[in-house]
């Protein structure tokens, strides 16, 4: 993920930022049982399916253990609510609080009434909807580009295996060890003056989409998955007269839904978090995603309106998360799950 030059924080070091293989990949690829049942091979990472934890039923029966666990779980829940929910509740409150109240008494509960018009100002003047749409378009394109390159590339390296496959694979693998930061300046110059095209890709979504496709992590992930598919099926299809395209479309792709799901989750999350690269190549405010637009407005927008804009920008992903919670958590768990 060459464009992810913005690893945010300590634990943000998901594959998106590190562009490195994750051991979970092998767990998926090497779990044919899950595949046969037509379910994503993520079963073993679902937290709620643990057989047991460190505590045995006998432990739970001991009052000391039970009380201290209840207590620590209570404390943990309180902390999680405070840290996980607290800032978002505050954000929601600021979104409808008059600016002067936010500045003077940020934690007082609406001392001077509610400013609903922050929301409409954010929606109409700041045009959050437009930038949100840009964000979605960016993510969709980056997703498509990554899926296209990863599936065709994986198919090439795993199934078709022409003679030059080894060279290509080595070259792809090598990029895994080159952190995104190296690409920052030269990739920027490539975008400015791309070979063959003859015109700058600056201020075009292609400048984000195409480099996103160059993810060695995805290609190798998909390739390893394809490697684990039963060869007999391919042979049978070939005997039936299926060419490489039929084989790809009708056999390989349908069988690889689980891994495509994983690549998709990674792709969308990475695009969602990307900041520095779109900041550099998308200069036209009309096409910027939220991540680039919001910071450029922070000093020229009324604080209450800015908070409303931030809240609206957060609302949609949070709602999506709550609805598709299980999918998110599975994907995240998979990000680092090690086969036990």
């Amino acid at each position, binding site marked *: 993920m060459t464009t992810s030059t913005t690893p945010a924080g300590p634990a943000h070091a998901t594959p998106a930022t590190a562009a490195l293989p994750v051991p979970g990949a092998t767990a998926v690829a090497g779990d044919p049982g899950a595949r046969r049942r037509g379910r994503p091979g993520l079963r073993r990472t679902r937290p709620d399916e643990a057989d047991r934890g460190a505590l045995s039923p006998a432990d739970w029966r001991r009052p000391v253990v039970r009380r201290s666990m209840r207590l620590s779980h209570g404390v943990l829940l309180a902390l999680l609510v405070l840290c996980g929910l607290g800032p978002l509740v505050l954000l929601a409150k600021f979104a409808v609080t008059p600016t002067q109240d936010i500045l003077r008494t940020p934690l007082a509960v609406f001392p001077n009434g509610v400013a609903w018009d922050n929301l409409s100002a954010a929606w109409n003047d*700041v045009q959050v909807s437009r930038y949100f749409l840009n964000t979605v378009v960016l993510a969709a394109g980056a997703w498509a580009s990554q899926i296209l390159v990863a599936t065709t590339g994986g198919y090439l390296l795993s199934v078709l295996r022409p003679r030059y496959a080894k060279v290509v694979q080595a070259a792809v693998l090598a990029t895994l060890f080159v952190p995104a930061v190296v690409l920052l300046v030269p990739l920027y110059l490539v975008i400015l003056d791309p070979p063959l095209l003859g015109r*700058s890709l600056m201020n075009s979504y292609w400048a984000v989409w195409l480099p996103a496709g160059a993810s060695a992590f995805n290609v190798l992930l998909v390739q390893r998955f394809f490697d684990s598919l039963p060869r007999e099926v391919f042979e049978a299809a070939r005997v039936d007269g299926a060419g490489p*395209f039929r084989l790809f479309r009708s056999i390989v792709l349908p069988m690889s839904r689980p891994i495509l799901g994983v690549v998709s989750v990674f792709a969308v999350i990475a695009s969602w978090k990307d900041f520095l690269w779109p900041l550099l190549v998308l*200069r036209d405010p009309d096409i910027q995603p939220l991540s680039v637009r919001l910071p450029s407005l*922070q000093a*020229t927008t009324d604080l209450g309106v800015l908070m409303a804009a931030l809240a609206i920008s957060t609302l949609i992903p949070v709602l999506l998360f709550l609805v598709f919670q299980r999918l998110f958590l599975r994907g995240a768990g998979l990000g680092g799950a090690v086969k036990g």
Partner: protein
Amino acid sequence: MRSSRTTALALTGALSFTLLAACSSGSDDAGEGDGTSGGKTVLRVVSLLPGSEQEAFDAFDEQVAQFEEANPDIDVQPEEYEWKATTFAAQLAGGTLPDVFEIPFTDGKTLIENGQLADIDAQFQALPYADDFNPNVLQAGTGADGKVYAIPAKSVYGIGLHYNRALFEQAGLDPDDPPTTWDEVRADAKAIADATGQAGYATMTQNNTGGWQLTVATYARGGRVQTTDDDGTYTATLDNDGTKEALEYLHDLRWEDNSMGANFLLDWSSINQAFAAGQVGMYTSGSDVYTSLVQTNAINPDDYGLTAVPLEGDDAGVLGGGTLAAVSTSASEAQKEAAVKWIDFYYLRKLTDQDAAVKDAETLVASDQPVGTPVLPIFSQEQYDESQQWIADLVNVPLDQMTGFTDVIFDQPLVPEPAGSTQELYGALDTVVQAVLTDEDADIDALLEQADADVQAILDKNAG
């Protein structure tokens, strides 16, 4: 196999085609290679700061409509724009600047030397008032070959001291009697901080604006941060007494009086925002900033006051600067023609032609946009006074709250910004200002010595 081969060929073709087509259509949106569309010359121009009020954009759009009506063969496409030292380079290198863009006086010479501005001398000389420019001002956009590459436009400013009249009143101070010495500024700042809990005095510190304002404070105390030698090379003099005095002054306000508030990471727009929100009692910035305070921060005009920067010591002066309008090197001849027409219409004609001035002011007033914000003359002072007379009835900015500035600005010596590697110099001083405001034990002498050496190294490198 036959069918798959055909498909393969078709697919290869389709893929490469879509890729190329998509790419070129993508850049079409921004780039218009030949600068025409439907027989019209397309001209991308800078409009307002991102996040400006809707009324400000309405007024701008109205002016675009007027221009296009007068020039039916030109299609003006406005783009939001904010010049920032830390983002401009990427825009310039990326070719994403509009055809007409704005740069500060300080950057004109180097951009011209680097061949990064279009030669618009022919178009410029055709303007009826081409010979009327104040030569000192025009010089900022003139190349070594004597040709004009960038036109002084928008504003020439002198630095003023902006103050919040409401905070003055809350602190028991008379807003009609603003401070005239730095000691009075300090005392008033303390009074405001004690009475209101807001920052009595604040200064910019980020994106090179910290260095810019420290240079202002240096000039005001008779110091200079750079000297030009006879052979045209520059010597950094960051460790001069004026700068030291200015930093010690900030140190005292910050650490002895605690009258500078609690947030010190401010740049041009964030200090404007804090000021408009009533969190800052006084700060120094260009005299034209009121326009932006209205356009982007919706300041309450009643709270706004402007007075002159106190000058103390021999050779003290007010820092003056301004904005140049320049044209991108990628512009075609037709676009250059159109660009200078736009510069004439939007920036300059209202200063030289009574009808244009009145029309411009009426358009702005109709959208409640500020008319009459004090600036310095681009042409002669008489001409400036005359142009102010034309629109006197339409002026809607609180001029009576700005007399502390307007009464004396023409008597104050105006000192231009340092000419050599200006932005690097400002950047080095940012660090010093930040250190003084955030570290009580900051060693001012050592910091300045280090910054001076760093800047001198850059100057030597650029000279050699």
